[in-house]
C-alpha cells in the first residue's frame, strides 16, 4: 500500500492557530487516500541525518494535492521546521498513504460519531470533508474538545458549516474557557457531553476517537460505559514524545 518515498513540494500554507499550520503539498503521482489515513514525512539534513514522522491528512486529495495539519511541539525536532521554516516551493519527501483501520468509507451507511481532543481533530476533519466532497448524507456528529476558542482548527468551516455539511452536527466543548455567552462550564469531556451530543448506542454508530493518549483513553471508556460496542470504537492516539 505504501510505495516508496516521493518528492513533494509545499504549495501553500494556512495557519489554523498560533501553533498549528496546514501544509498543502503537491505530490506527483499521489494514488489517493481514505479519510483518516496518514502520511510519513522525511527530512534530510545536509550531513545526511534523517528524521521521519507521521502526520494525519486533513482533507481528501484533489488530484496530486494533499493537505495535512501539523501541531508545533515545543522543542520538537520536526514540527517547528514544518510550521516555521519550510517555505512554499521547498521539497519534502512523503510516503503513503498509511493506515487502513482508522478510516471512514462513504459507502458505510452507519451513522458516525467523531470525538476529537485538540489536534486529534485532523483525521476527523478529513472525514467531515470527505462526506461533503462525496455528497454523502450519512448522519455525522462531531464532538470537539479544545482548550479555548483560540485553539479551534478549521474555525471558518466549523463555525459556519458549508451547505454540504447539513446533517453533520458540530459541538465544541471547551476545557478552559468558552466563548462569551456559552452555557456549558468549561470542563473536560464527560459522559453527559457524549450522551447529549453523540448518538445513542442503539443507533450502532461507527465511533472514531482521536487525540492525546489520556483523552482517548477517557473518551473510549465513556463510550463503552454508555453501551457502545467496543468493536465499533476506533481510536487513534497522538503519542507524546513526538515532535
Amino acid at each position, binding site marked *: *500500500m*505504501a510505495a516508496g*518515498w516521493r*518528492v513533494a513540494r509545499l504549495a501553500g500554507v494556512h495557519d489554523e492557530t498560533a501553533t498549528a499550520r496546514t501544509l498543502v503539498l503537491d505530490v506527483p503521482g499521489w494514488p489517493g487516500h481514505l479519510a483518516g489515513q496518514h502520511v510519513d514525512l*522525511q*527530512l*534530510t*539534513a*545536509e*550531513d*545526511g*541525518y*534523517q*528524521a*521521519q*514522522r*507521521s502526520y494525519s491528512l486533513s482533507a481528501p486529495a484533489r488530484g496530486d494535492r494533499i493537505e495535512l495539519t501539523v501541531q508545533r511541539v515545543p522543542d520538537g*525536532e520536526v514540527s517547528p*521546521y514544518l510550521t516555521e*521554516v*519550510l*517555505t512554499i516551493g*521547498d*521539497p*519534502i*519527501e512523503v510516503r503513503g498513504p*498509511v*493506515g*487502513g*483501520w*482508522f478510516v471512514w468509507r462513504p459507502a458505510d451507511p452507519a451513522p458516525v460519531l467523531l470525538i476529537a481532543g485538540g489536534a486529534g481533530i485532523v483525521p476527523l476533519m478529513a472525514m467531515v470533508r470527505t462526506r461533503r466532497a462525496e455528497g454523502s448524507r450519512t448522519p455525522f456528529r462531531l464532538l470537539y474538545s479544545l482548550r479555548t476558542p483560540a485553539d479551534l482548527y478549521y474555525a471558518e468551516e466549523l463555525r459556519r458549516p458549508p451547505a454540504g455539511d447539513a446533517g453533520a452536527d458540530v459541538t465544541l466543548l471547551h476545557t478552559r474557557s468558552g466563548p462569551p455567552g456559552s452555557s456549558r462550564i468549561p470542563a473536560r469531556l464527560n459522559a453527559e457531553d457524549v450522551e447529549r451530543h453523540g448518538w445513542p448506542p442503539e443507533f450502532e454508530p461507527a465511533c472514531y476517537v482521536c487525540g492525546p*493518549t489520556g483523552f482517548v*483513553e477517557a473518551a*473510549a*471508556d465513556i*463510550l*463503552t460505559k454508555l453501551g457502545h460496542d*467496543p*468493536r465499533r*470504537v*476506533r*481510536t487513534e*492516539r497522538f*503519542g*507524546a*514524545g*513526538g515532535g
Partner: protein
Amino acid sequence: MGIVSPGFHGRPRGREVELPPGQYLVEDFPVLSAGPTPRVPLDRWEFSVTTESGTTHRWSWPELMALPSERMTVDLHCVTRWSKLRTRWQGVSLDTLLAGVETAADFVLADSYGGYTTNLPLQDLRNGQAWIAYGYDGKDLSAEHGGPARLLVPHLYLWKSAKWVRGLRLLTRDEPGFWESAGYHDYGDPWREQRYQGD
C-alpha cells in the same frame, strides 16, 4: 540519502545511540492501540495455546504466577517511529509455556482480549526471545500498556507484542493479523525497517 531539506538541521548529533532506521528516541512510554482498553478481571483471565491438531493448553492467572518468571531489560521499537531503550519487564518465557506443547506448526496467531490479533513465526517465540509479561518497571503492568499480561517480543516492532494477550493459535500456514491485514508487514523486523507489506 534523500533530498536535502533546506534549513533542516535535526537534533544535535553526538550522543550516539544506535537505533533502527527511521526511529527516534523517547523517554516516556507512548500508548498505541486501535480501540478501547479492555479491562480483564484476574479471576476470569486465562491464557491458552491451541495447537494445529486442536489440543488446547490453558493457564489461569494463579497458574501463570506459579511458573518461574524472568526479569529482562529490552529495547522497544514501535512502527510509529519511537524507540524506548532499556525497559525493565517481568514475565514467563514462552520457552517455559511451550515446553509441554507438541507441535509441528511454523506460525502463530496471537489473539487478545478485545479482539486484536497479530501473526509471527513460531521460532521467533522460542530461545529466550519472547515472554508473557505481567510486570513493567517493578510494578504490575497497567491496562493501557497491555495488562494484566501482554506478549513481549522485543526484537520485532511492538505491534507484534500483543497487549491483553489471551492465547496463541499454532498454525501450519501464516495467517495475517489485525494490522497485517491493514497493510503492515508480516514479520516486522525494525532493523530491516519492515514497516509495511512489501518493505
